[in-house]
Every structure is written in C-alpha cells, then in structure tokens.
C-alpha cells in the first residue's frame, strides 16, 4: 500500500519552461555601486537611495540565520544578479500590446490573463521577473480612489505615501533577508485603499521568476485607511532550473481603524526534482500591522512549491480589538523543506488571533510549523487559538511543531493544539469497500484535512489550490 501512496504523491512539475524574452540583466554581485545603479535605473528619489544604502549597511553587519529547521548549501550572494528587466520598456495601453510570447507563458501557466481578469473581475498586476508590464482594471479602481500599481510607479507618482509607510512594518534591519530586500528590491505591488472604500474586486498579482539565477526581491506594500477593506491574491509559479534560486520578498500591510486586509497566497514555485536538485529558496518576510482599532489582518497561504520555504506571515495587533488570522496549508514532497508559521504579537486590548496550520509531508520532505504567540503586558483580554495539524504520507518524511507561547498578561487566554496523523490503510480500505479507489480517497482525505484553510480562500483560488494539491499528491495507482 505504501508503494501506492508513493506513486500518488509523485507528479512532475507542470510549469517547467523558460520564456524567451530578451532580458536586461545586471552583472552578478552586490556592492554599493549595484544599488546605486538599481536606484538610478528606476529614477528613484534620493531618500529611497538612502533607504537602500542604509539597509545594505545593516545587511553587511548581519549574518545569515540558522535557527530554522532547514538545510541548504551556503548561498553565494555575489553570484546572484540583482536586477533583471524585460527589455521592452514601453508602457502598454492594452493587453494587445503586451509581448505575445509573454501572454503565451501565462496561457501555459493556466492564467488566461485577459479572460481571467474579465470573467472573474480580477485586476491582475502582472509581475514578470521584476518589472511590472501590464495592469488591468486600473481605471475602474481609480474611480473609487484605489491605487493599485507597481511599487516603482508608486515611487514616482505617490512618493509621499511610499515614504510614509515603506519600512514601517518591516524595518530595513529586521532580518538578514529583509535587509537584503530593502537594499535591492526592484519591483512589486503597491495598493492603497482610501478611507471608507471597500475594494470592489479581489486584487491579484501573479509572480513568476523567469531568468536563471536572477534573485527576486519583490516589495509589496498595502495600505488600508480607516474603514477600508481589500482582498489581495498572490499566486506564484516559476519555471524549472537546476541551480537554486533565491526569492526574498518583503510584504508590508498596514490596516488603520476598522480596516480589513485579507492577503491570500498560492505558492507553487519549482520545488526541485525528485532527487532534491534545483528549486527555489523562498525566504520571505511578510508582516501586517493592525494599527487601528477594530482592524483586521488575515493571511491565508497554500504553500506547495519551492525547495525551501521559510516564511512567517505575521500580525502585529496594536489597535485595540484588532484581529489577526493565519490560515496555512504547506505541502512538501521529495526533498522539499518547509519551515513556516506565523507570529501574533498582541499589544492592544482585547486583541484576538487565530492560527490554523495544516502541514502535509510526503517523500523525504520535512515540514515544520513554527509559531509565536506573544501577549505583551498591555494586551488585556487578548485571545489566541492555534491549531496545528500534520499529516505524514510515507515513513521517510518528518513533521515538526514548534509553537512558542509567551504570555505577560494574566487576563489573556492562549490555547494551542496540535496533532499528527496519517492516511491509515484502514481508512483507504473503508473507502475501497465503498467502491472508491485509493487515488480519489487520498485526494478526499487531504482536501478534508485542509478544509478549514481552503474555506478562507476566495472561490477561484480555492479551486486552484484544490487542484494544486491533487497535482502534487495524485498519480497513477499501482
């Protein structure tokens, strides 16, 4: 029966191809001159260059963290190219003007961009490597005062907003990779929802890493003003390469009074082959500041790709009555490693947080949940509930749970529960006795296991996530 399970979880990566679009790539290596070059290429104001250089200085003084439960060869930061831009520089008025090769890439990825955008009512800010090439629905959003554009565009058009918020949630020296990102980030998304506006549609960005050895350093900043709300979707796929690629994004969210930000991710970057060769290193810093009273920040993630995933989308619950949520599914197979979880920092009174984490490990992979719930002395009446479940498929993989609970206030209530289970042969037999084959049974059990998280995803993302899990865990039986 275990052979059946082994087959079920082995499924080749579907998105392995390179789009042949001419790229402009910076020489490998990192120094002050490269940073000045990036800043100059992007025609940035002086303060942003200062921001980058300060981050670079901090980065030089820092060392790579090693506490996470992942293993990988040392990264040579001087062998990475820190800038890569498609050469076609002109801005597009419509999708027709976009390089057809690029559009075909999206087709192959199963993202019929215009169709998807039109049918699903999703505005897609397409990031191809590091430069934003097309933005749809911008005008409709602009009508209600929403800004949704690339961060480089925002730097030019809305410098005051960027200056006010950039680096306020994730300071330049927050951690090694955040410092690196702050020094060299090339592009990403910016989203601003003004006071009282409920964003009329889900905002969506598809990221792709395309050029071999080009590190991706996305920077995303989302601001929801008083009473505003937005649901943001991030989807990631990357083509197959045999050298590992580093991805070190920073995402900052700020929710003011009564604001609501929901951030959903489906991550399916190349995970390496069945022998653990290749694959993306996904070292991401994501953090939301629930700054205002009654504000809410909700992270939902489905992590199926990358050779190494190392991320903790976090919430700083500063506003009284603010709410933080983290819903996560992490699936690892072959030699993948995932160390993911969240931090919930309770500062305001009556702040509440919920953590639901589902880890599925197959093959020789390792999946770790690492989470911190901290209740500071000011957080009277804080509440947290965490549930972290793991499922192992096969006997070569590992599942780990590292919850840190730090409570400094006696009116707080923190609850953590975790369990480990497997797909039992008795369960499969029960399905079989009712006429349901192993493949379908596994898929059903896994989807049931992840149900609490999938329910949090917007409809079309939930469908995609369910499919992804099936891709990942299905195959021929016998």
């Amino acid at each position: 029966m275990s052979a059946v399970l082994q087959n079920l979880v082995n499924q080749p990566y579907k998105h392995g191809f390179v789009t042949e679009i001419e790229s402009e790539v910076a020489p490998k290596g990192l120094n002050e001159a490269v940073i000045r070059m990036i800043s100059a290429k992007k025609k940035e104001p002086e303060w942003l260059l200062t921001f980058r250089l300060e981050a670079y200085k901090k980065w030089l003084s820092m060392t790579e963290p090693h506490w996470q439960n992942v293993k990988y060869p040392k990264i040579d930061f001087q062998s990475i190219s820190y800038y890569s831009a498609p050469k076609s520089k002109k801005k597009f008025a419509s999708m027709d003007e976009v390089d057809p090769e690029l559009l075909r890439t999206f087709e192959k990825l199963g993202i019929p961009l215009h169709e998807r955008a039109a049918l699903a009512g999703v505005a897609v800010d397409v990031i191809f490597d590091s430069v934003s090439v097309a933005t749809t629905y911008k005008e409709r959003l602009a009508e209600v005062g929403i800004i949704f554009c690339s961060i480089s565009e925002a730097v030019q058009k809305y410098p005051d907003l960027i200056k006010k918020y950039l680096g306020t949630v994730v300071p330049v020296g927050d951690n090694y990779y955040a410092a690196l990102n702050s020094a060299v980030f090339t592009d990403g998304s910016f989203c601003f929802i003004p006071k009282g506006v409920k964003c009329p549609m889900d905002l969506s960005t598809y990221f792709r890493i395309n050029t071999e050895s080009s590190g991706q350093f996305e920077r995303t900043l989302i601001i929801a003003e008083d009473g505003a709300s937005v649901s943001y979707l991030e989807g990631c796929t990357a083509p197959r390469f045999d050298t590992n690629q580093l991805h070190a994004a920073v995402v900052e969210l700020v929710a003011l009074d009564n604001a609501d930000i929901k951030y959903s991710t489906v991550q399916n970057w190349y995970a390496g082959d069945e022998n653990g060769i290749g694959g993306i290193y996904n070292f991401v810093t994501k953090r939301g500041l629930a700054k205002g009273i009654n504000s809410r920040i909700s992270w939902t993630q489905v992590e199926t790709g990358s050779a190494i995933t190392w991320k903790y989308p976090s919430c700083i619950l500063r506003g009284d009555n603010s709410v933080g949520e983290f819903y996560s599914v992490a699936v690892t197979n072959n030699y993948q490693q995932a160390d993911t979880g969240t931090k919930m920092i309770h500062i305001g009174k009556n702040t509440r947080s919920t953590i639901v984490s589902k880890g599925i490990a197959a093959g020789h992979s390792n999946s770790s949940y690492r989470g911190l719930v901290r209740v500071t002395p000011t957080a009277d009446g804080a509440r947290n509930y965490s549930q972290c479940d793991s499922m192992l498929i096969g006997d070569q993989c590992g599942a780990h749970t590292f919850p840190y609970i730090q409570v400094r206030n006696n009116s707080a209530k923190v609850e953590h529960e975790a369990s480990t289970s497997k797909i039992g042969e008795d369960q499969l037999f029960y399905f079989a006795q009712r006429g349901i084959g192993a493949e379908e049974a596994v898929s059903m059990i896994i989807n049931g296991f992840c149900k609490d998280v999938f329910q949090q995803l917007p409809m079309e993302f939930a469908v995609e996530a369910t499919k992804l899990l099936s891709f990942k865990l299905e195959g021929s039986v016998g």
Partner: protein
Amino acid sequence: MIDKDSKTLLEIRDLHATVNNIEVLKGINLTIKSGEIHAIMGVNGSGKSTLTKVLAGHSAYIVTAGSVMFEGKDLFELEPEERARAGIFLAFQYPIEIPGVANNQFLRLAYNTVQAQRGKEELDPLEFDDFVRDKMKLLEMNPEFLDRSVNEGFSGGEKKRNEILQMALLEPRISILDETDSGLDIDALRIVANGVNQIANKENAIILVTHYQRLLDYIVPDYVHVMESGRIIKTGGKELALALETRGYEWVSAENRTAEGVVS
C-alpha cells in the same frame, strides 16, 4: 427466503486464510443464493470477522487455499473497490472515522461510483441530497449527520446506522453485516433491523455475523451457521440460534467433537 428458483450469488469452497501468519480460516464451505439471509454465529476468535474481511479483500488477510466465486466470477481477482462496485458490501464492526471528509460528500461519491459502474445515472449534489434524506428516514437518522465528518464523533449506534444507510444507498447484491448489533440499544437495534429488512429482497442476500440471538428476533435468518476454530461446524435453521441462546455454544462444540470422534 429460500426459493428453488434463486441463483447462486456466492460460493465459498474450502477457504483457508491467515492473519500475521496464523491460520484463522481452516476450510470454510458456504453457498449463498439470492433472497437468502444467513446468520453466522460463534464465539470470539472463531474466525467470523476474518471471513468478512477476506470477502471484502482486506490486505492484512492472506488467502492460502480455496476459492470464492461471486456470481460466477473469481472474487479474488478483484481489488477491494472492484468488489464493492460489483455489489459486495461490508458493514464494518468498527466503522473507521475519517476526519475532515463530510459524510454527504463521501456518500455521494460512493453512490455515484457504484451507479456509474452499473451504467446508471449519477446524481448531482442537490438530487443526491433529496435522495439520501429519504433513505435516512428509513433509519430515523437526523439529517445533520450529512454535514459531519464520516463517522467522526458518532456514537456506536450512529456509526452502525450510518453503515446501514450506505447499504441502503449502494443496493449491494450481498451485504455482510459484521456484528452490527453490538453496541446497539434495543430501540436502535429495532431501527437498524427494520432498515435491513426493507433492503432485503429476492435479488440480494444478507450475511449476518453475530454473537447473539436477539438480532435474529428482528431479522429472521433462513440459515444459521456456527463457526468454531475457522470452520463451520454446524448449520441449521433459525431454531439453531434459539438453541444456542439457551444451551450455549459448548454443546455444539461437544457434539462436533463427538461427531469427529466417530468419523476418525
């Protein structure tokens, strides 16, 4: 009911099987025809449950000798799910809990799989909902069970009813009920038995595996078989069950020893 026009559904010949290298079935012979209800009785460890698992195809049970023909086909050629689709249904003694998988989702998938096999129409979620609710009335089941995970947190009686519900949905040719009466109070027993009786017809057959006579007050068997040490040592009509109830298993066993003694 015993009917001379009935067809043979299941033919077990000299069946031997092992679990963990221990021989548990040591030559079972049993023929089951359509329309019949058979009761298999015997003390713990006599091999009753093993027989049900072997028929359903559980991988832990290894058939070492003998044959089982199901409607003229070699049963052992079929995978467990193929047996289910062909019409063999096992109501488990201990139904498995499957957290996270909603009961209605599971029931519909199982139902549609079997329907597709029979070339019949599959039901969409709405049609199925009506259909299953109807069947649940038969078993006096609360519809809220549809939204809960399969068997998770169900009481013993609820699990058994859920098994019979599946039996009602899948309309098997042969239903094997493994100690369905255990853990049921008298009301639940009556409800489950009523359900089974309504499902029983001229085309199908039922095997009841039980320790006790009381289930047989409600579902009246045509044949009663007594198992001991992996063999059927006595076969009789429904009166045999009553005799067992009053005299215990020991007398059959003793009688069997005497008989064997005479033979050898």
